[in-house]
């Protein structure tokens, strides 16, 4: 079962990459762009087929390794393509 972990910087942690992307997009002539935030996704293919257990496993992985909770928050989506 596929599980997607999305890791973003916490609010309050400066995101220079997001800012630079916003800046670059504006430079390319794209208008009407507010805040831009950049983060990471990790797609995991788990043997687990129970959604709740898959989520719990991914959450443990995120806490242990995939995110640094000093600076990052994470989000888990189970299933999908």
């Amino acid at each position, binding site marked *: 079962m596929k599980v997607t972990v999305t890791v973003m910087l916490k609010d309050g942690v400066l995101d220079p*990459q997001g800012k*630079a*992307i916003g*800046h*670059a997009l504006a*430079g390319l002539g794209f208008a009407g762009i507010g805040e831009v935030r*950049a983060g990471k996704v990790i797609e995991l293919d788990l043997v687990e087929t129970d959604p709740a257990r898959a989520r719990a496993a991914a959450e443990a992985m995120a806490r242990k390794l995939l995110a640094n909770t000093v600076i990052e928050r994470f989000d888990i989506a189970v299933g999908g393509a």
Partner: protein
Amino acid sequence: MTEVSPALARQFGLNDEEYARVLAILGRTPSLTELGIFSVMWSEHCSYKSSRVWLKQLPTTAPWVIHGPGENAGVVAIGEGLAAIFKMESHNHPSFIEPYQGAATGVGGILRDVFTMGARPVANLNALRFGSPDNPVTRRVVDGVVRGIGGYGNCVGVPTVGGEINFHPAYDGNPLVNAMTVGIAPADRIFLSAAAGVGNPVVYVGSKTGRDGIHGATMASAEFGQDAEAKRPTVQVGDPFTEKLLIEACLELMATDAIVAIQDMGAAGLTSSSVEMAGKGGVGIALDLDAVPQRETGMSAYEMMLSESQERMLIVLRPGREAMARAIFEKWELDFAVIGHLTESGRITVRHRGAVEADIPLAPLADQAPLYHRPIEVAPPPPPLEPVADPVGLGPALLRLIACPDLCSRAWVWDQYDATVGGQTVKRPGAADAAVVRIDGHTRALALTTDCTPRYCAADPRAGGAQAVAEAWRNLTAVGAMPLAITDNMNFGNPEKPAIMGQFAAAIEGMAAACRALDFPVVSGNVSLYNETAGSPILPTPAIGGLGVLEDAAGAVGLALAPGLDLVLIGRTAGWLGQSLWLREIAGREAGPPPPVDLAAERRVGDFVRARILAGDIRACHDVSDGGVLVAVAEMALAGNTGARLAAGPAMSPHAFWFGEDQGRYIAAVADGDALLAAAAAEGIAAMRLGRSGGAGLTLPDGVAISIDELRAAHERFFPAWMDGAGAGPGIGG
């Protein structure tokens, strides 16, 4: 199953005559896999079919050359039982399509060429040519290429210590990314690629094989109809972490007696490595593709043989050493698989899923490889330049030149390259004419440089080829090193055009003359042809990577001026403005022949300068190149944060004296100018006093004063301003 036909062969890049030769060699229609093997082995890239006849003219021997061209990299003895192993290689096309990964994998590839011979890589350099800064694409390419070179080199922990950058609209659709690696090994522990020992195991190590960069020809082939296939990228993604492990694991294995032969899997991966190893050793090779570590499922024999997945090596082991070798690679968490053995058949046979997918005699594959004497047409050099008036004066011209993209500070670039890792970097980028890297545990050091002036080569490829070699020799000399040998990277347009082939032939001729005159042989190199976009070629660019040695690293001199020294110009000045940067940037013209190199004078002057450096007389030294004498003085002033007062030059137009690009010249800063002038006179070497260092700015002979701060602001403006906010590339690590 795809039908093999002359039409398909053409799509694979084999012309009808070449395909007929394939049929004759095999006595039957090739399988798809066989066609793939022939097409890559007979490609320009692997066979040098257009360039081979010319490359033969380059001198390749000297008493200190251990291995010249033909091995994975060149090997020269550098004293104390040590050898330096080095080579330069291009990754031009991939770097335009995907600048970050293209440049990164270029660095990875050249590193493997060097450590496959048993050397620990100790330095990287890169020679880069980009399109016009006004072209919006250029900025993206520069940003990605610089990040990619840094991303890979920094991660593997090899310092990037030098290089060069030019801009010209001729590179708009075709930038050049030439990467050079230098390594050190004991001179009696060099590993070669010729396989030997029938029955010996053939071992695959490194990363798994995927469908990366499978031969471009197939991409264009409609017969390979599956959509997914056609859309596969030709660009590979580099994995510098795996490369770092591969370096350590290979060096660990090389400390044992297990290896008979070893070769990296470069272009055309498994095909070229296995064919070359067996071919060179005069043995046969049998491969079992089922044993190849695979990243993807359902790969065909064709795909596996042509995959260009990175970070892989092929090794022939002594019998019975498999378990020990496997343990080393498993410790480093790398794949290890015995995928075949050597045979006495003289053939390469490839088995996959129970079927023989290829069975080709190796000797004709090599001996009957196409070789072309392509027609050449050498354009006459431009007519002499008539005198050009100075429209602006010395001071304004200096400020403009020192700020122009071809002469401005490259600090923005080299700041992104780890230049100090390894703890041996004596002269970092910008500190001296050549980078100086001490050899761990020794007092001696290597001096390293890359050089080429494409605008000279375009105007007169013969003079430009000689100039590139001479400048490399000069840059090594200017730090006090004894120049030993070069690697080259011949970047040219379409060789089927006589005018391009003429440039190639003339450049080689010039290089060969310079190499001979300077005892500076070519020990390795790379040819990159078809550098054209929409029929318009790049400037002919024979990039030269030079290597020299200093017996005492502490004797190396840099550019930095200190106060209270006499500035002496050594070498003859005629005021040559043809193809100079002054002419282009100030007078707005690209005209005239390039400055000629007097090779005998070059050598005499250089040997004199080196001797004075080794005698300890010279405190700072800089060769005179792009921009001429005044630019060279300004660069010394900036490096040392020290000004100078300059006296009037000899009787010629001041702008021709101060900005002319006559070759074979150095500026030396010495405590006793009279003594140096006397020593030069005694040897019949032209030398003259330029002025004296000190103060916070340059005072020009016409009385104009320019502060170091003003110079620095001009010098350092271009890159940061141009690249500001260029983007947010991939990972940069820590």
